[in-house]
């Protein structure tokens, strides 16, 4: 580890923070467009520095002793509680943090530019850019965190910025509810992160990520093997941390906030709820991966199962949704399930770490094509003024650029060669096959479902029946189409990045091999999904309704998202509010309050009865006094002596 190399990376969060402060404090005093430019300039600066860092790290410094090194570019004592316990702020540079820097700054910059068009004329334009700066700052603070506590702090900060941006249209009750829901659900999950982190820190005595995740001599190794309920302490700790990650990454059953979060402006959905914040959970698991793989294989198995289940679950729901943003939200959940599953099935050394590499690769590609899909959806909503695909159709005539870019993204997410999704999904399937064929077949089926629902979306929006629009839909302005085109290029070619050369679990580059037995079936199932979607939705037909009718039970379950929200509501209302809370409130109102009110009313009663003694009549007082003196006198004479 060399000192102070890459010190300039600390400028990225600092500049973004200054931009947030400046636009936040003075944003309402200047032209909103200027605010947007300041914010965009800050993120573009971050973008340039990130790319420069990546270039320098991978190509100039490159491998040291055959592996990519970890640099602590900056480290500073921030909070000092006792000499034993202090919390640092720092910047940690290694392959995955650089990859995340690139993802965050790229998508954020695209969204900043795009929002000039999309948010034009909104009353809260300056506020929007302020929050975007806050979010970018927090997200970058999260990815470069050098210790777990710093990560946790920024983790909460991204939660806050997500809350603020979902609730951007704060006059709309549904947006307010959605922002509250997102905040409460993720906060609830973060409690797991906090507990797990403290457990980990208690047994190792450090928050430092380098010390925690050093594969030779894990700091956690000294923890007692058997902990609570027959599960070791370290498994508990990382399991709880995974709960935090699952909450942020919308894994089942903590996913309920993500579809509602679509109430926020569409660029926000693209940035936060597709590309960056929701993959923070994946990033967290990847960050602590050595602990999972060496000390807590049980927790890693849980990661794989939750990921695989969420991917199937979300894909099934996505098929029947009609709000295009919700389809994309469930698709995000499904793709993050892929990443989680890939981490869960991964090993550590060499090719056994394919899953880890594939997960990061998919994270990278997903950020590009999913933000593109969301931004495209934003352009469509901008043109049609509706979120529902039933209000759309035949839009390819009106929105040619959006059409092409959306198609590229849909092909990428479906895993069609040569678009980026093919490569990462392929690697994930290879890793799944190596671990357990069940994972492979599950994810293989999900790949088919993904292709189907994406092309259902695509065909319903851009093909389908010819229809008359009240206002002729117009292609979006240049500020919106340029980010679309840039992201489309990224989605198309990112697959050719030799990712395993840069990112691997043990930091040592390895070669990936083409596995025809895996690539061809997955391509086939994706093609099948697309063909089925084309048959059903390309021309107006009655087939979809017929199928929905014959499978009405499953259709209804899926359309209502398996009633998970209702189960939560029932649970909170009946169990928590009805039984626990009402009993507690009765106790509070009658016993606690009753006791205190009793004291007060007793005092009041006594004073009511005795206040007449203070009559203002001087002579009465004199009589009382003399009687008292006489009484004392008698006492002294007859009792005391």
């Amino acid at each position, binding site marked *: 580890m060399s000192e102070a190399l890459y010190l300039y990376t600390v400028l990225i969060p600092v500049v973004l923070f200054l931009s947030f402060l400046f636009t936040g404090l003075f944003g309402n005093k200047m032209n909103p467009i200027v605010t947007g430019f300041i914010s965009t300039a800050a993120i573009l600066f971050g973008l340039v520095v990130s790319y420069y860092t990546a270039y320098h790290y991978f190509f100039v410094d490159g491998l040291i002793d055959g592996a990519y090194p970890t640099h602590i570019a900056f480290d500073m004592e921030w909070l000092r509680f006792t000499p034993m316990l202090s919390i640092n702020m720092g910047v940690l540079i290694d392959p995955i943090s650089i990859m995340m820097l690139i993802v965050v700054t790229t998508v954020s910059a695209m969204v900043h530019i795009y929002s000039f068009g999309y948010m034009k004329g909104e009353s809260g334009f300056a506020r929007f850019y302020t929050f975007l700066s806050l979010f970018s700052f927090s997200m970058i603070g999260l990815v470069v965190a050098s210790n777990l506590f710093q990560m946790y702090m920024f983790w909460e900060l991204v939660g806050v910025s997500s809350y603020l941006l979902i609730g951007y249209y704060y006059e709309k009750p549904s947006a307010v509810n959605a922002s509250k829901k997102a905040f409460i659900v993720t906060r609830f999950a973060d409690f797991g992160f906090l507990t797990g982190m403290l457990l980990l820190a208690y047994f190792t005595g450090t928050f430092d990520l380098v010390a925690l995740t050093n594969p030779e001599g894990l700091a956690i190794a000294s923890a007692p093997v058997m902990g609570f309920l027959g599960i070791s302490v370290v498994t508990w700790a990382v399991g709880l941390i995974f709960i935090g990650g699952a909450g942020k990454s919308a894994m089942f059953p903590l996913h309920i906030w993500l579809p509602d979060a679509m109430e926020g402006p569409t660029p926000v959905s693209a940035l936060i709820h597709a590309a960056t914040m929701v993959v923070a959970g994946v990033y967290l698991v990847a960050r602590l991966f050595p602990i999972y793989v060496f000390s807590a294989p049980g927790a890693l198995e849980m990661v794989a199962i939750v990921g695989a289940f969420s991917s199937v679950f979300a894909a099934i729901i996505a098929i029947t949704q009609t709000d295009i943003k919700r389809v994309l939200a469930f698709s995000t959940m499904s793709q993050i399930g892929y990443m989680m599953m890939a981490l869960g099935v991964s090993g550590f050394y060499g090719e056994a770490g394919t899953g880890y590499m594939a997960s990061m690769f998919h994270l990278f590609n997903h950020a590009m094509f999913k933000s593109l899909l969301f931004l495209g959806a934003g352009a469509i909503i901008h043109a049609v003024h509706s979120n529902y695909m039933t209000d759309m159709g035949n839009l390819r005539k009106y929105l040619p650029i959006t059409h092409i870019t959306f198609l590229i993204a849909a092909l990428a997410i479906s895993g069609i060669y040569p678009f980026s999704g093919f490569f990462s999904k392929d690697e994930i399937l290879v890793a799944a096959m190596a671990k357990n064929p069940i994972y492979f077949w599950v994810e293989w089926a999900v790949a088919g479902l993904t292709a189907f629902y994406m092309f259902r979306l695509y065909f319903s929006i851009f093909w389908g029946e010819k229809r008359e629009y009240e206002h002729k839909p117009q292609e979006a302005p240049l500020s919106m189409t340029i980010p679309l085109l840039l992201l489309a290029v990224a989605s198309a070619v990112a697959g050719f990045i030799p990712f395993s050369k840069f990112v691997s679990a043990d930091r040592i580059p390895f070669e990936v091999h083409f596995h025809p037995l895996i690539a061809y079936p997955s391509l086939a199932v994706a093609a099948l999904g697309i063909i089925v979607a084309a048959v059903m939705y390309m021309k107006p037909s009655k087939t979809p309704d017929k199928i929905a009718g014959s499978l009405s039970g499953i259709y209804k379950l899926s359309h209502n998202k398996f009633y998970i929200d209702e189960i939560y509501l029932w649970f909170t209302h009946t169990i928590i509010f009805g039984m626990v809370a009402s009993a507690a409130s009765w106790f509070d109102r009658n016993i606690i309050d009753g006791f205190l009110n009793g004291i007060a009313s007793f005092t009041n009663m006594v004073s009511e009865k005795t*206040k*007449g003694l*203070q*009559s*203002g*009549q*001087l*002579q009465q007082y*004199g*009589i009382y006094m*003399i009687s008292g003196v006489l009484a004392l006198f008698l006492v002294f004479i007859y009792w005391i002596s």
Partner: protein
Amino acid sequence: MVDIPVEHFSYIALFVFFAGLYGFFTRKNMIAMLMSIELILNAVNIQFVAFNYYLYPDLMEGMIFSLFIIGVAAAEAAVAIAIIINVYRRFKTINVEKVNSMKY
């Protein structure tokens, strides 16, 4: 004169003391209440002088103490009358029952 027993002085003093006390509690006029207080003080003076004479004929403390009390009583009367004048200016009365604004 030497024949008068000391108890008789005490009887007188007791009578004067209670007369003063009674006056203090029953008269509504503040001047009259002040006069009652003077009676109480003088009862004490009688006791002081009598006991000094009978118990310690060669000492003078009791006598001097009563002189002090007379002096203090004069000062107290001056202060009390000043207060009463102020009360009168404010309430237009020196009836102690009417001066009762300090109550609950």
